[in-house]
């Protein structure tokens, strides 16, 4: 294929391997046919513009379908269940952040003055649920790696294709916990996040009092 398709070939590499092997050459040939059929420079420019919009959308769709297919067919049930459970446990935190942001935007409340901060459920959404989500995601992931066959454990550690539900939710839960512990509201006792975690009981009480 001529060098005019070099960029396109790179773009095609973003498709899943199976799809690329089956349809990659056909896509390039179709584009070559389109360009050969268009003698005008402006017409060719329009074709490139169209392909520039069409291919990225197609790549996203195709990869989503492939991920969905992998998830439905090849991914162990406990990974799906672990990812789902962890995801559900992170919903309250996400909703609370959104609600708190709205509260700040509408009533100009600070984090400490907001209604959410006073709610007794705060500790649950802020720490317990993300902590549980992280535990569930990590447990599923460790189980997935541990149940691999001989010498395949490293392959499973980096197997994003199948383990992405628990990796994604686990990373999100971890970032939530980091956010909570490093947020100034958590620096009640010593101001040092590491010491705060070490003295978690006092920190916990302090956050509750704020």
């Amino acid at each position, binding site marked *: 294929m001529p060098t005019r398709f070099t960029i396109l070939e790179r773009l095609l590499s973003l498709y899943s391997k199976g799809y690329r092997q089956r349809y990659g050459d056909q896509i390039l*040939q179709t584009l070559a046919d389109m360009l050969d059929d268009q003698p005008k420079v402006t017409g060719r420019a329009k074709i490139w513009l169209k392909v520039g919009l*069409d291919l990225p959308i*197609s790549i996203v*769709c195709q990869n989503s379908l492939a991920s969905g297919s992998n998830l439905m067919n090849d991914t162990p049930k406990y990974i799906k269940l672990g990812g789902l459970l962890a995801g559900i446990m992170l919903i309250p935190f996400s909703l609370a952040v959104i609600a708190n942001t709205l509260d700040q935007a509408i009533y100009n409340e600070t984090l400490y003055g907001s209604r959410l901060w006073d709610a007794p459920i705060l500790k649950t959404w802020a720490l317990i649920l993300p902590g549980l989500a992280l535990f569930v995601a990590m447990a599923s992931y460790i189980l997935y790696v541990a149940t691999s066959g001989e010498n395949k454990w490293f392959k499973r550690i980096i197997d994003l294709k199948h383990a992405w539900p628990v990796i994604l939710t686990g990373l999100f839960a971890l970032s939530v916990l980091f956010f909570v512990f490093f947020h100034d509201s958590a620096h009640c006792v010593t101001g040092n996040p590491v010491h705060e975690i070490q003295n978690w009981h006092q920190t916990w009480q302090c956050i509750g009092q704020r």
Partner: protein
Amino acid sequence: MSKKYNQLPQVAFAILLALSLKPRHGYEIMKQVAEDSGGKIKLGPGALYTSIKQLNEQGLIEEVDADADSRRRYYRLSGLGKKMLGAELKYYETTVELARSRRVLTMEPGYAY
């Protein structure tokens, strides 16, 4: 009318219709779809092969045996594809007849009652 007779998305229907006369390769399908739809459906290569893959997986079209080295692969309707296209056309035919009998087609645009 059974539900399965109206399940083809617009692009899938257009591709099946384009393949109803003879086997075609990707660019021919694109041109035929544009022509059949009066230029309303213009597929890019990405969208085209996404649909071709789906139709192939659903068993509605099949690849014609061709030279393995050729970058142009020809596709044709499968038996199931012909059946689905026929059912879909029958559905549209019935719908258009119904619309004619109600004189909907001769109404002014936007006229509903």
